[in-house]
């Protein structure tokens, strides 16, 4: 099937304004009659729930943490982009649009990206009004820094805790609505099913993580803002509770999963130290503003302390390969370059899987105090984890799974192919194409939540009768029974290996075969291994405890079961996409000097997969991508 993204036609500059005017509205006095369920309270979900509550809708918000303030958006460090052009350095909405399309390696929809760029400026204003303490200069004006993939300074920041401050802003707006009575919060709830009645999303089934009760909630619309899925690699920079579960349950009920093979491996993470590690820690890409990446030129130097390696024996490989962007090359390119050096046996540190990020030159030029003011908390974090002082010796970094560009397929209105199901933020596939630029995730989350969904959801709600289907419908009972049966099955297997052991096993396959470099051979190997591990899991997992209590083993087992099914679709998508683009690198498709080679003729489309059952071949639906405002070109940062 050919999918239609329902993008506005005509001049792109006015596309969003025209669309807003043409969309239907809900009368102010009717809004409270509509009940909206919003799953996830990060930047996208928190902002959406707050804004919809302000408008007068009856909003119910759900999160698995004990507070809406703890979603993983909070961990974003570096900043948020906006086309304000405050520094007078040539930025514009068009340039942000162009950079994002190019940064995504020409695999995103033009209209969605234009809208994102347009509303980016409103986000900054909104956050300032909420009391977000962005960095300011001595004149009292907002400060900017640079990020990868851009040649202008358009990134707004709050020290190294921008995600935290933006999330707390959204959380404060949400808290205000809780007090106003328009939003009801359901913390420590995990969504375990989407309830679909006659093809329309009508509610969710979730588990109360404290009591184990299975709850049914009906809504006139369901919003998923449940983040990304890179914990499929086991070790990633995501929080431990991040999972594909909510999105996957929707996929099992008919929502298409789009471009799952577009995964971002972030270049500046702290290298793995041992087998017992539970997660990887990212350090903001902004470090590459002042840090220089290098490895020793000679293999025999790799074991020596970095201070003893002479300047002429160091290979500043990013500056060498990409002179115009240098250390600020986009993430996919910087990550692959680091891997290349390590594959060439010039990596440093334990296992030789690391490269240096060196601040010595910047400290000489600007002084240690300036570097401390810019990145103090990152240096502190680095020292806590590695026991090394980044001011005195270069940091060691290595790429790690970080972000999912792929996600549930949505149209221009952020609605999935299942009517009534909307998907926002990282959970959808829409704006980042095959690679996300730094400081764009926060922008997308807040754009979707504050400025897109309040308009587009009205267009849908205006066509439905409020409360037409409630939780007394048979589908809710059926869904709850299925959820219970699944939990009972997990608890009854009583095998010999724990969920975390199986998660490690799956992660190892995904990282080695479906990680930074993929080939037909490695992907076929993964497609053989994933079902084997999945089958073993379902016959030999040991989940201790019971359902009627707080049970983290059970939570993990359920999430892992979904990762197994999802991993297969991700791998199939990677195998289908016979080209290299952005974060998806197929070793068969590269230039002589190792750069990604796109195939626009055959793959300039969004791949949306329809789940047909466990172990059954999924069906591929295509949405062709049209480029009318940006010329398809080879992406070069040289």
């Amino acid at each position, binding site marked *: 099937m050919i999918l239609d993204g329902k993008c506005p036609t005509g001049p792109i500059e006015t596309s969003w304004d025209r669309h807003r005017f043409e969309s239907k509205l809900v009368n102010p006095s009717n809004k409270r009659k509509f009940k909206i369920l919003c799953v996830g309270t990060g930047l996208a979900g928190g902002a959406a729930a707050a804004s919809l509550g*302000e408008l007068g809708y009856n909003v119910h918000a759900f999160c698995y943490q004990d*507070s809406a303030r703890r979603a993983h958006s909070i961990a974003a460090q570096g900043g948020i982009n906006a086309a304000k052009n405050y520094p007078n350095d040539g930025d514009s909405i068009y340039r942000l649009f162009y950079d994002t399309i190019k940064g995504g390696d020409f695999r995103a929809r033009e209209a969605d990206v234009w809208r994102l760029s347009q509303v980016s400026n409103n986000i900054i204003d909104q956050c300032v*009004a909420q009391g977000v303490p962005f960095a300011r200069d001595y004149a009292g004006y907002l400060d900017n820094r640079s990020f990868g993939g851009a040649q202008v300074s358009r990134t707004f920041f709050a020290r190294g805790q921008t995600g935290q401050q933006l999330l707390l802003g959204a959380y*404060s707006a949400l808290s205000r609505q809780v007090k106003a009575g328009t939003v009801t919060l359901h913390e420590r709830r995990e969504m375990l099913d989407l309830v679909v009645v006659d093809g329309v999303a009508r509610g969710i089934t979730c588990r109360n993580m404290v009591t184990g009760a299975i709850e049914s909630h009906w809504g006139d619309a369901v919003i998923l803002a449940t983040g990304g899925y890179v914990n499929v690699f086991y070790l990633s920079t995501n929080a431990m509770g991040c999972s594909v579960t909510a999105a996957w349950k929707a996929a099992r009920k008919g929502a298409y999963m789009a471009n799952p093979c577009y995964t971002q491996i972030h270049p500046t993470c702290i290298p793995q130290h041992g087998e017992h590690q539970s997660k990887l820690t990212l350090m903001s890409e902004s470090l590459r503003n002042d840090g220089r990446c290098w490895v020793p030129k000679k293999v025999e130097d790799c074991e020596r302390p970095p201070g003893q390696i002479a300047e002429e024996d160091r290979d500043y490989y990013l500056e060498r390969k990409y002179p115009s962007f240098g250390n600020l090359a986009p993430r996919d390119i910087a990550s692959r370059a680091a891997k290349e050096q390590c594959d060439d046996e010039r990596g440093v540190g334990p296992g030789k899987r690391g490269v240096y990020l060196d601040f010595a030159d910047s400290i000489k030029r600007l002084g240690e105090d300036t570097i401390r003011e810019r990145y103090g908390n990152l240096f502190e974090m680095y020292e806590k984890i590695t026991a090394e002082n980044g001011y005195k010796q270069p940091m060691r970094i290595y790429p790690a799974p970080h972000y999912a560009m792929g996600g549930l397929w949505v149209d221009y209105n952020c609605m999935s192919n299942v009517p009534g199901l909307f998907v926002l933020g990282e959970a959808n596939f829409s704006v980042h194409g095959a690679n996300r630029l730094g400081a764009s995730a926060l922008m997308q989350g807040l754009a979707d939540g504050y*400025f897109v969904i309040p308009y587009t959801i009205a267009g849908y709600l205006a066509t439905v009768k409020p409360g037409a289907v409630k939780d007394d419908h048979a589908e809710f009972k059926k869904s709850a029974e299925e959820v219970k049966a699944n939990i009972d099955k997990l608890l009854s297997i009583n095998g*010999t290996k724990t969920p975390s052991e199986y998660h490690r096993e799956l992660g190892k396959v995904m990282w080695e075969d479906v990680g930074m470099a993929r080939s037909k051979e490695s992907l076929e190997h993964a497609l053989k291994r994933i079902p084997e591990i999945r089958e073993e899991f379902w016959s030999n997992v040991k989940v201790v405890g019971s359902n009627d209590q707080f049970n983290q083993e059970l939570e993990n087992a359920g999430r892992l079961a979904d990762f197994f099914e999802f991993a297969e679709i991700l791998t199939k998508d990677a195998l289908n996409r016979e080209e290299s683009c952005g974060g998806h690198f197929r070793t068969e498709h590269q230039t002589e000097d190792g750069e990604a080679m796109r195939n626009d003729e055959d793959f300039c489309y969004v791949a949306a997969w329809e789940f047909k059952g466990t172990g059954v071949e999924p069906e591929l639906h295509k949405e062709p991508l049209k480029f009318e405002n940006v010329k398809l070109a080879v992406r070069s940062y040289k």
Partner: protein
Amino acid sequence: MKLKLHVWRQNGPNDKGRMEVYDAPDVSPDQSFLEMLDDVNLVLARQGKDVIAFDHDCREGICGMCSQVINGVPHGGQERTTVCQLHMREFKDGDEIFIEPWKARAFPVIKDLVVDRGGLEKIMQAGGYTSCHTGGVADGNALPIGKDIADYSMDAAECIGCGACVAACPNSSAMLYTSAKVAQLAVLPQGKVEAHRRVMAMTEAATEHGFGNCSNHYECQASCPKGIDVKFIAKLNREYMKALIP
């Protein structure tokens, strides 16, 4: 290294609870404290025993989910460090470690080391915001804000809402937590408008939900993983006085 753990086990809010002893026989100094507990739980799970429940999520010191009293000190006593960022190199071979949940009347235990911090939410919902509506706000640069003021506001805004300050306080006071939000907003032009209403509503909610008063022990600041300064409590008191005097 080899460690002996004394861990608070409590199967639900109505259980009496007790300390139980576990061995951690093979701990690497590069592991985080939570990874050490993961290993202990792995052994328990393989034996079919109920694992130790503890809250955690980001494991990079920013979400505020982790919450353990280690050897009597919330987050374990390393300066400006959450439990998840505490590493085992801070301990030595043969150490005995005592692990308990946040202890405060306002934080009932859910299971083992997991507590209910809902009271902190109520304080925020009472007034921890500016009442601006999405859309229709002024340009971000319309009101210049001095760098010193923006920095002061940011110092307060770094609070991660973990509740260590409450757990450390002999009065279970949430004053440091409340003051961080009051101070962050009170100094900004956007937050000044509602400063009086905010400080009254938030302090009232704190009392209502079982948090005590401040009697200047400063244990909160000492245990705060973000180093939030008690000077913000002084600021809260000044804001409170200003609100009392019309």
